[in-house]
């Protein structure tokens, strides 16, 4: 199952075009990292992936399905998208019920098992009976990730999944990403956190106001400081220090 944006444009108001002529692809075993300044339309792009929003021009294809012609409930079997604000999606009275909702709703086999597995992967198994709003915001964020994992959708799209996570939780998230890759699931991640995600990305999409600034191999962008700056991005400090010292490859501080 591949996701393909073909010359997609979108706007909330005609006076304020947001995404213009956007093309990219994502598929199994791939990790697409989407970056760009605040307000360029990154979260909007994710809502176009699963048909919550439909393009004003161009096409979004999920396999053979044009998202404009299919119900979101059908598209949700193939791609699961999390929201930036967990409050926009959490509704169940316990963590376990929240995580089990997606596989149940999508009529997957053994929803309870899928939920248990996802909670364990996200380090939430110890809080399964708690009310989601009794959890700290960081764990609530992980809860949205766990719900997506449990959906068993082959493509997963996360909006700022590492925001507010502490060291321990970030390590957990990294392990989770590795395990999802082993399952050949395709990942699309919107984040400002280059230090965490850049090393995992197989493709990078850099958005700027109304344009695609870059789409391609992450390594190329890392070597092009000028484009990075244009996108309002900065490499993680250890990477910049390594570069200033001219010792790239000698020691990676980002690990």
């Amino acid at each position, binding site marked *: 199952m591949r996701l393909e944006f073909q010359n997609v444009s979108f706007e909330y108001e005609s006076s304020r075009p947001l995404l213009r002529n956007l093309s990219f692809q994502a598929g199994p075993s791939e990790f697409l990292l989407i970056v760009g300044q605040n307000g360029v339309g990154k979260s909007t792009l994710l809502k176009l992936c699963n048909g919550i929003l439909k393009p004003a021009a161009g096409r979004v294809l999920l396999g053979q399905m044009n998202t404009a012609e299919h119900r979101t409930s059908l598209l949700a079997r193939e791609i699961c998208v999390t929201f930036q604000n967990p*409050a926009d999606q959490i509704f169940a009275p316990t963590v376990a019920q929240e995580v089990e909702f997606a596989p149940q709703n999508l009529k997957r086999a053994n929803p309870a098992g899928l939920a248990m597995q996802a909670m364990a992967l996200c380090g939430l198994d110890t809080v399964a009976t708690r009310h989601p709003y009794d959890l700290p*915001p*960081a764990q609530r964020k992980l809860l949205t990730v766990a719900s997506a994992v449990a959906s068993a959708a082959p493509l997963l799209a996360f909006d700022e999944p590492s*925001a507010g996570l*502490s*060291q321990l*939780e970030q390590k957990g998230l990294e392990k989770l990403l590795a395990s999802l890759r082993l399952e050949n699931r395709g990942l699309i991640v919107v984040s400002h956190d280059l230090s965490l995600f850049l090393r995992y990305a197989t493709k990078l999409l850099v958005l700027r106001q109304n344009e695609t600034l870059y789409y391609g191999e992450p390594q190329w962008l890392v070597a092009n400081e000028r484009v990075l700056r244009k996108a309002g991005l900065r490499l993680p*400090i250890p990477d910049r220090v390594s570069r200033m010292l001219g010792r790239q490859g000698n020691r990676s501080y980002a690990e």
Partner: protein
Amino acid sequence: MAARIDISALSLRFPESAAPAVDSLTVSIPAGTCVGIVGPTGAGKTTLLHCLSGILRKHHPDIVASGNIRIGTESFAGIPEDILFPRVGLVLQDQFVQISGVRDTVFEEILFTLENMGAAGADSDRRVRSVLQSLGIEHLRDRKPTSLSGGETQRVALATILVAQPEVLLLDEPITALDATAQGRLRSILTGLKGQTTVLLSDSQIDFPLSVCDLILVLDHGRAAAFLAPGELPASGQNFSNVGGLDRWLQLSEDLRELSDKGSRVAARILKGLNLS
């Protein structure tokens, strides 16, 4: 005018929990300094900030508190019982909650703060414009506050508190949704506030606090594991493996120091620039 903050033997426990959220915390924060509060999830960062702002007691009337807090000339036995705004301004971790949603434009939303304070006057427009400019969000001034992206909302949330010019500014994870440019602007604002406003900002990662704060308070299970200037962290000999990114920074600092000792001027310059020398 900035206020000094003295926290003495402060302990806080939520009734439903056996372990304290803040445990025998004693720290003195000089007036006008910028303090970074770091530590793992559950360390007590948010609880401490909420406590200092006065909203903790409002949200948790049954919290068990002991110790003393002094903010400027005002002393509190236990914790403040009332919200201390506008003397103390708190920017919440969840930026979407900070927006009132009762005003139609970003400009009016920020102006709403001054109206609430009873401080709206002839210079209100200028104050709002100035804060919009310093955060780089003039282009959002006529947008509907509830239609903004996460990062835009976080900046507007900041603006609604900055416009009040509090003596103490409390920022709970203020950069989670900010891009690099917006982080740079916030860094400039905080640098400009030094000496005038006492700032406490929490973050689960060390990078931003290290780049702007005069002091770093490391919290672990509600206790102060360290309260040091950034440059003192490498020599403290403590294990900070549970603080986001700090161990990596200390390794970097050690390597740079070694190179600097061997005569590398670039390494010495970087050390200084990174606030680690």
